[in-house]
């Protein structure tokens, strides 16, 4: 021990230098291997609605074809926990490392049985200073609170209904560029802007639609030109402060873009072209009783305004008509999580759409969903969760409202080196 102290003391005398004993100075290429982790999410699902019926369910006036395995044009992918019985939701490969003293890079590769998707691949500046940060590549937008987080850090197995309904299963996950500024204030104040391509198939798309639909031997063309360049802009401001021992994070978000929604393969073929705006409010309050146990309240309210035209068949299916459509819709979720220890947590969530106005006519606005979950972690790296959903927001063309009850048992397991999560 004395000897160790002595060498350290000597080394420390060489002021300004890091003191690495000679035997520790080594060159090894393996040191440059990025942090690698693999996150597995698998589940067992028991639902009162048959798999083939799930894809026919819709959120009236808001979205349809959300659940189950589905295809959109050339993409085929399934949502999380799509089938009754066993599901392999994903095996996600995450790589991250510094590039040089000025950048770091992250890649998130979403492996599923259908193939691989580049969920995220982006470069972030680390040396801009003055609270500035830039990011480019493909990434989850920082819109709202939940959107930026990955599935494995969500408190429930599924996204809140308002996110699913407005933005689909992946939220705002886009190619583009992001600038953020953290102000030098006593409390946390951050503002950001993102210029994004606009590939979201549920709300913010801009791709070409060209589809021929055959009705009684006649071909009808659904056609709209794609827009060259980026069409989605996101901006937000967030602030955080502590009230006593409670940490509060709250923000306002805004997204503006075009909508090109292709439902020409549907039974009632149609497409929807619009200018769309999405407004978000988020609030998270977390109270820690000690290092491990906490209570967390989280809510987000989303409001959207879509102004455009729908192209569809007239009633006797002899011609295409393009009436203008204006949708003003809003939804919210609120959830509470209580973790009595490092290993256990339980939570409740309430989802609702409270405004559903199309062309100034109020549609179904009593859409609601209730979720409850409990989870157990053997360590930070393995989590098992039992969740029950009662979804009273779905309906089917002929049958009307369908109440869907779902039990999901999921396992989320990760190996390797995975960076710490932000608040």
């Amino acid at each position, binding site marked *: *021990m004395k000897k*160790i*102290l002595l*060498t*350290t*003391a000597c*080394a*420390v005398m060489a*002021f*300004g230098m*890091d*003191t*690495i*004993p000679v035997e520790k100075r080594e060159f090894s290429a393996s040191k440059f291997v990025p942090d690698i982790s693999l996150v597995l999410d698998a589940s067992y699902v028991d639902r009162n609605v048959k798999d083939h019926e799930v894809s026919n369910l819709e959120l009236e006036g808001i979205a349809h074809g959300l659940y189950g395995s589905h295809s959109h044009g050339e993409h085929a992918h399934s949502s999380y926990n799509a089938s009754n019985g066993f599901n392999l939701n994903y095996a996600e490969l995450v790589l991250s490392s510094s590039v040089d*003293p000025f950048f770091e890079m992250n890649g998130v590769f979403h492996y599923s049985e259908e193939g691989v998707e580049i969920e995220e691949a982006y470069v*972030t*500046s*680390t*040396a*801009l*200073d*003055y*609270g*500035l*940060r830039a990011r480019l590549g493909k990434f989850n937008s920082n819109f709202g609170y939940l959107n930026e987080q990955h599935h494995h850090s969500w408190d429930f197995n599924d996204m809140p209904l308002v996110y699913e309904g407005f933005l689909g299963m992946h939220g705002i996950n886009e190619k583009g560029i992001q600038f953020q500024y*953290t*102000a*030098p*204030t*006593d*409390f*946390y*104040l*951050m503002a950001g802007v993102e210029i994004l391509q606009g590939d979201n198939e549920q709300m913010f798309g801009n791709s070409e639609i060209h589809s021929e639909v055959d009705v009684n031997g006649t071909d009808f063309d659904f056609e709209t030109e794609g827009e060259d360049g980026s069409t989605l802009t996101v901006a937000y401001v*967030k602030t*955080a*402060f*502590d009230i006593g021992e409670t*940490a509060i*994070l709250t923000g306002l978000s805004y997204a503006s873009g075009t909508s090109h929604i292709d439902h020409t393969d549907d039974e009632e073929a149609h497409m929807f072209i619009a200018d769309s705006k999405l407004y978000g409010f988020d609030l998270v309050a*977390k109270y*820690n009783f*000690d*290092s*491990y146990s*906490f209570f967390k309240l989280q809510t987000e309210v989303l409001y959207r305004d879509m102004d455009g035209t729908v192209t569809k068949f007239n009633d006797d299916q002899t011609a295409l008509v393009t009436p203008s459509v204006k949708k003003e819709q809003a939804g919210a979720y609120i959830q509470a999580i209580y973790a009595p*220890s*490092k*290993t256990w947590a339980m939570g409740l969530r309430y989802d609702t759409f409270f405004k559903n106005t199309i062309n100034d006519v109020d549609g179904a606005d009593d859409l609601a969903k209730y979720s409850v979950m409990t989870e157990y972690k*053997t*360590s*930070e*790296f393995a989590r098992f969760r039992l969740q029950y959903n009662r979804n009273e927001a779905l309906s089917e063309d002929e049958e009307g409202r369908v109440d869907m009850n779902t039990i999901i048992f999921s396992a989320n397991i990760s*190996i390797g080196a995975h*960076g*710490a*999560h*932000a*608040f």
Partner: protein
Amino acid sequence: MHKFFVLLLLLPLSIFADIKIAVTYPYIGAIVKEISKDKVSTYVLAKGNWDPHFVVPRPSLIAKVRRVDGIIINGGELEIGWLPPLIKRASNSKIAKGSIGYLDLSRYIDFLDKPTKLDRADGDIHPDGNPHYHLDPKNILILAKAIKNYLIALDLDNKKEYETNYTSFVNLWNGKIKEWDKKMEDKKGIKIVQYHNNLAYFNNAYSLKTIGTIEPLPGIPPSSRHTMELINKIKAQKPSAILHDVYHSTKTAKFIASKTGIPVIIMPHDIESLDEIEDLVSLFDYLTSAIK
């Protein structure tokens, strides 16, 4: 009147300290205070009574880190679960790795318990070894020196001040070390049990021997099988006490104590982890008096 005038002159100095520094744990803040007195204002990010591995990365901490001129961390991956997201968000070049404002104290310490292999089947282990090194009082001197040099590099104008404060701190501390050595003399070689091996350096300094931990592996909660094994081990090896941290539940420890008759002794790991631990001296005064 005269006194009041002097006070008035000094007031702005103490309020508007020249530089602002964030430190991760209270003990680091205390060393900075000893050496800088009123020349530096420090902001401690973690709470002393919580598990140093699990600090909530509250966004309000980003605002603190955003505005400081420097940061001093424990290192050895103790902060890996919470500090990186804060630093990344802050985008403050003054605290970037490699800048003079960034000080990783672990670089000056040789670690105990460096694992020879890394496998999570062995629990949540630190690749560099045990990072709770500040509980060896001799290490505090090494840290004080590193911090003194760091402050001088950051703020050359007050070099003299830092040198003087450092020298008087070293004198005080050396005297204290002798005192503590004397107090711990008769404890040499005694066996103890811990919850998590966060007293490794303290035990090493005073030749206490850990025969087992209540957690079966680092970071893994107690299991009934491991607890029964530990009880048998305690009955066979007769350790003097269970030394317990302040942030884990003492439920299992108390159960073991009731089965074996050995006492549970709470051992503070940092300043403010117990109400009476107000500074570095009281931390080690307490630790060296705790084992009866």
